[in-house]
């Protein structure tokens, strides 16, 4: 296709074909009641656009995301609670649609493993510090030959400038 044919092509793409770029929530979707609209946005952010790479329906311009956004808004107007809406959509599309997995069954591992790791980390660190604390009042054994040499290098590094001049002068 040559560029001369472009205006027609452009018109087709922009004005007729479904859009596949990030505009997401369209003006006509918005509910009149700001509180209901805010709820719809909040819920949309928790639902995955199933045909997209990795986006919520709130961020996606895919037709499916559009349909789901409309569905969420219909259910809100129908008087369902946030929880009921998520349940309803989950029953239609499966658990995969939820971006915040349900804390039940095997998903508990997801939710509990980090706190457990934190607790274990703190416990191990406490034990370690306790061990290190013992050394505080013990007189250190004198340095080995190896350590003395190492110490000298470190001290020389810190005094670098002087040693520099000495060595070069």
């Amino acid at each position, binding site marked *: 296709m040559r560029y001369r044919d472009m205006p027609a092509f452009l018109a087709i793409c922009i004005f007729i074909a479904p859009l596949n770029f990030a505009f997401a929530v369209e003006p006509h979707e918005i509910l009149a009641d700001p509180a209901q609209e805010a709820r719809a946005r909040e819920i949309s952010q928790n639902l995955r656009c199933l045909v997209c790479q990795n986006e919520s329906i709130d961020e996606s311009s895919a037709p499916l995301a559009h349909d789901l956004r409309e569905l969420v808004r219909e259910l809100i107007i129908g008087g369902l609670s946030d929880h009921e809406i998520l349940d309803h959509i989950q029953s239609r599309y499966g658990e995969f649609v939820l971006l915040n997995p349900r804390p039940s069954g095997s998903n508990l591992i997801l939710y509990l493993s980090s706190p457990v790791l934190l607790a274990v980390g703190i416990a191990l660190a406490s034990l370690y510090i306790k061990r*290190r604390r013992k050394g505080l009042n013990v007189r250190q054994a004198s340095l080995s030959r190896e350590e003395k040499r190492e110490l000298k290098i470190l001290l020389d590094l810190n005094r670098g400038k002087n040693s520099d001049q000495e060595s070069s002068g």
Partner: protein
Amino acid sequence: MIAELGHFALILALFAAVFQVVVPFIGASTGWASWMKFGQVTASAQFILCLAAFASLTASFVVSDYSVAIVAMNSHSAKPLLYKITGVWGNHEGSMLLWVLILTLFGACVAWYGSNLRDEFKSRVLAVQAAISLAFLTFIEFTSNPFKRLLPPPFEGEDLNPLLQDPGLAFHPPFLYLGYVGLSITFSFAVAALIEGNVSSLWARWMRPWTLASWIFLTIGIAGGSWWAYYELGWGGWWFWDPVENASLMPWLIATALLHSAIVCEKRDTLKSWTVLLAILAFTLSLTGTFLVRSGIITSVHAFANDPTRGIFILAILGVFSGGALVLYTLRARSLTAHGAFSFVSRETALITNNILLVVATFVVFVGTFWPLISEILFDRNVSVGPPYFERAFTPIFVLLAVILPFGPLLSWKRASSGKAMRKLRVALLLSVSAGSFTWVYQTDGRMLGPLGFLLSAWLIFGALSDLWLRANVRIRDFRSTARRIRSLSRANWGRAIAHAGLGVTILGIAAITAWEIEDIRVAQPGETFEVGAYQLRFEGISQKERANYLFVQAELTLMKRGNVIGLLTPERRLYPVARMQTTEAAIDLGFLRDVYVVIGERQPNNGGWAIKTYVKPLANWIWGGALMTAFGGLLSLADRRLRVAYRFGKRKRSATHAI
């Protein structure tokens, strides 16, 4: 012909890598000086050969040689020159070549600038480094040859993904790779130390600048990617918890932990085996990131064309290097005895707490990223883990980290007093609580997110200021000696304070944008004026134009505040006919205190109006400004006299440093 030369250079680099694995390693065990020296020659050779390969691929892109397959698939003759060049790494094969180029660059840097390293140690580092580049050169040669020819060559290329035709592609991947791949050096240092069975303060001193440098690159790379997403993706999000973003965040978190534990290792001769473990882990997570992006195992907006054999190959590399290093670690960790003793209240403890929190934060990201996969394989349960999970699980840990952070620098090593540290931070606490309360009074919606965010951020910023203030021993009445003391503060001190304050600035931006962003979605007729927050926008009209390789519609909006014109905004929607893709180009009026962000949508079929989205994003730029401050703090630390002297000193007084 150019492509064949590049391919030939790549194969030579592969052979150089083979020699570099074997020769210096034998030299280090036998003490043969010339064998050890040989490693330095091959390290330079590898870099020069990879550079030649990279240059020849770049040349193929610049002259649009469509007989090279990836040029045909990712370029177009009408594309601007900048994007022809950046297109080199805008695809799987080319980006792998950039990866290896940086890998060999770091190896060569060890050879060139590592003159203060002991010869045996340096040879082992170079051997390990060469093993990594050997693995990746083999990977490129057998699964991802960038120089593959296409016969017959097409007349025109298929163009680069339009989302990537942006200056962001020029800086984001190179910085990110410099960070990722820089961590290979710390890995090689760790493995070489494990082979020798000796981790000393001097080892930590050697390793720190390399860690710091890669951490700085990684910080800039991640922040740059976040900013790119902000202006390019069309709705001003700055972090999506996408698997690939997470893949860059994990090594960053571990590298941050490593920076801090290496300080303890250097100054206090403890936490040795822990520091080594973190060094191994950091590069392991870098490799995991590479695996995630290129295997297609997890759906992501960043994924390259997926090929299972590549995934398996990288998984094998990951297994060999990380697995091998961890086995070596379990064999040798016991011999790494700690010496320094310290009490419960001490800077050591503060830094250990920092490490625990950073590791747990990494784990949160890790388990969230891989949970869909684990759940499907083990429990046959298809789940998604998205931003709501990450925000809930990650935020508390990071808040905790920010709460303890200002105490760290004010506690003394070995044995400190918590009362004393608290007294030193009295003023900072008072100021930050006032900042939080003031915000709470000033805002109108009564939510706690903004005020708490401001409190936390002020705590970090004033905490960093207190640190500098106390270290300079500021006396208001004695101005001259105070000024002298401020001047004599070391760059490491400035660096630490600025890096920590930078985190505060980032948190301030995040809190403000999350709590007070204004969004307006509407249909506007040309000529119409509408109000968003404190601003008025007049929709002047729409025009259609074309540029080199795309066509676009452009809207013109005049931005006004209290009736005064403060700017013209021109959001676009582009159509790339060759790639058959549309993109949005948001128009942003950048500001110190807020961004006004406009996106143009669809023309409404019924009334000829246009969908327009407008956001007012308070303190948006502070998010990346803070990250840059943090990176700059790292740079100051890197330029500290002690590290510079260590380098210069090592150069001149080589013989003396051979002691250990």
